[in-house]
């Protein structure tokens, strides 16, 4: 039997048995609902939509309503105009039926009637619109063609150039990096624990002894890690895809520029990080004598994951800090640190690929070492936990006959 067939069978069993459990179905359903709710509820409540105001206008230059709408748009505010007579405008303004009533007198005076108070923003919009309308009117009277006038009074498109330390780093991009790092941290931790628990269960039930008859330890470990990884990835997709579709369909989220790239890199880093941590979790899971000891035995790995996660969180505050780069190149931390640097656009593609390569090589080494520890651990049943060093020193091959005497 080829190496891959064995690993494939093991992985297939992991997927089938995990997906079949009620716990898995219930958790996934809850996660899907929570993720959808996180998208749908804000959209339904609608507090996230663009700001709206209705303004009553009485008298004034003909271009005043258009100027109000344009000035509002510049402030991300949609202004609806009601053209009314002076008295009606004043009444509606005072009654609060409209946000404000703008009443222009013949002598160029402008009265604004409101119910209680007017926001600085709306006051600014009105002031800008009235000033703009006067200029427009004056220019039109002076004989300038209307198209030329519109061009001159349109708000200029400002090219903002920042020179501060965090120049060019968008808060939204970092938020995406933050979410990706968090999801990676949790996914690696949970699936890692599942690998360790699964291995410990096979050891405790002696299933591993039966399996080792047909499989090499590396096949067993690889299959288990792959199967649980597929389930984790599938669950992640089952949760994320409906939520993302809903978000795009409702157009309710303002999607930051770095999103797609960061998420794709996040996926790549999940593969690399999971290969690394999965092998390590599997190896440590094989050392325990009882399933209850899994948490304790794998605590060092959880610590590394926490460090990577915290590292990425702190890195968000200052991507140029001296420690960010070296830490993001180390395999145990790279899976969580790199997506943040990618999100902040603070790293070259070559560097990411380099770190990825290092992590994958480390994962391959760990699979080999892990299989060795795994075999030594699996065969030591009962009694106490096997020490990592003992497991690594154990003979690598099985059943090589000793020279007979």
């Amino acid at each position, binding site marked *: 039997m080829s190496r891959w067939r064995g690993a494939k069978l093991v992985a297939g069993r992991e997927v*089938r*048995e995990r997906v079949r459990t009620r716990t898995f179905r219930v958790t996934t359903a809850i996660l899907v609902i929570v993720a959808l709710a996180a998208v749908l509820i804000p959209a339904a409540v609608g507090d996230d939509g663009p700001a709206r105001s209705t303004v009553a206008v009485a008298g004034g230059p003909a271009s005043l309503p258009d100027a109000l709408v344009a000035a509002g748009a510049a402030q991300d505010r949609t202004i609806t105009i009601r053209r009314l007579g002076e008295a009606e405008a004043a009444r509606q303004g005072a009654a609060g039926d409209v946000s404000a009533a703008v009443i222009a007198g013949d002598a160029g005076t402008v009265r604004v009637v409101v119910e209680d108070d007017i926001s600085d923003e709306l006051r600014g919009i009105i002031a800008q619109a009235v000033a703009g309308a006067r200029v427009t009117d004056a220019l039109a009277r002076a004989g300038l063609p209307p198209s030329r006038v519109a061009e001159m009074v349109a708000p200029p498109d400002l090219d903002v150039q920042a020179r501060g330390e965090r120049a060019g780093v968008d808060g939204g991009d970092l938020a995406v990096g933050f979410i990706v790092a968090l999801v990676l941290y949790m996914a690696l931790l949970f699936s890692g624990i599942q690998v360790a628990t699964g291995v410990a269960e096979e050891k405790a039930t002696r299933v591993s*002894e039966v399996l080792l008859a*047909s499989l090499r330890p590396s096949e067993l470990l690889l299959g288990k890690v792959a199967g649980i990884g597929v389930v984790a990835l599938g669950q992640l997709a089952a949760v994320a895809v409906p939520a993302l579709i809903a978000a795009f369909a409702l157009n309710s989220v303002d999607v930051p520029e770095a999103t797609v790239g960061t998420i794709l890199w996040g996926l790549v880093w999940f593969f690399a990080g999971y290969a690394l941590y999965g092998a390590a979790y599997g190896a440590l899971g094989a050392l325990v004598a009882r399933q209850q000891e899994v948490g304790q035995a794998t605590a060092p790995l959880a610590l590394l994951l926490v460090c990577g996660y915290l590292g990425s969180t702190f890195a968000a505050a200052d991507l140029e800090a001296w420690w960010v780069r070296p830490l993001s190149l180390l395999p145990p931390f790279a899976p969580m640190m790199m997506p943040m640097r990618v999100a902040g656009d603070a790293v070259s593609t070559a560097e990411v690929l380099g770190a990825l390569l290092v992590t994958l090589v480390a994962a391959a080494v760990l699979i080999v070492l892990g299989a060795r520890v795994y075999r030594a651990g699996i*065969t030591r049943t009962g009694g106490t936990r096997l020490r990592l060093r003992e497991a690594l020193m154990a003979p690598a091959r*099985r059943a090589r*006959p*000793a020279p*007979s*005497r």
Partner: protein
Amino acid sequence: MLEIRGLTKRFGDRIALDRLSMTVPPGQVVGLLGPNGSGKTTAMRIVFGVIDADEGEVTYGGGRIGPEVRRRFGYMPEERGLYPDMRVRDQLVYFARLAGLERERARARADALLERLEIAERADEPVQALSLGNQQRVQLAAALVHDPEALVLDEPFSGLDPVAVAGLSEIVSEAAGEGRLVLFSSHQLDLVEGLCESVAVIDHGRLVMAGRVADLKEASGRRELRVDLEPANGVPWERGMAGVRVVSSDAEGVRLALDPGVDALEVLDAARAAGRVRDFALEQPTLAELFLAAVGREAR
């Protein structure tokens, strides 16, 4: 033919196996027997390649047991060896496929075995929902599902009631009858006495006795004649015969140990002359008695 030669295994300072040698021919049930902690499981795990021996070797058909050969073995570890929450049939199909069977054939084999073991109606239940006896049947099915050439069963009968033992014994004998090599271990010497054709008995990792059960009993030279007599008079007929020693006397009658060469029928004649014989039996020592005698402990 499975050959075990000079197996030695130490765990720290403790010697679990001390130069153990035995052979297991195909077509008969061979028992590796001994009290708890005698090294049986260690030996079984070495045979199966789960652990390595410090010295000695195990060969099958003259060659060393590699992964390919091992896949043609059926193995049942001491207790469990199954996924508790996996369904019975799924489990058997999985093990069969790992051993190299194609999906369809694996399913057919699994169903046939479940039928044969009379647990077909539990096929879709998780293993942990089954009674211990039925779990052990599933284990045996898992060991047999890929139609192995050899069966290595570690304590297949522990914890079972007599009915379950009888059921499993039948299947094990059947497997040997089909030409398979069958090696199993047990600490219950009396329980499996009728099942094995030959045995190897170990104590503290060392071989105490080995061979065909009938030969071992014969060679021990120990025979006991039990006679339940309704005496015609009070004369103690059993005393004074050469080579005959009274072992016990109780409600089942008097039990006499006969030296080699003593004709049991002559002793019985003497009894018949003394009264009416209600019941009698010529009994060979049990394996347990032979074992205790061999390790120098008294049988009773």
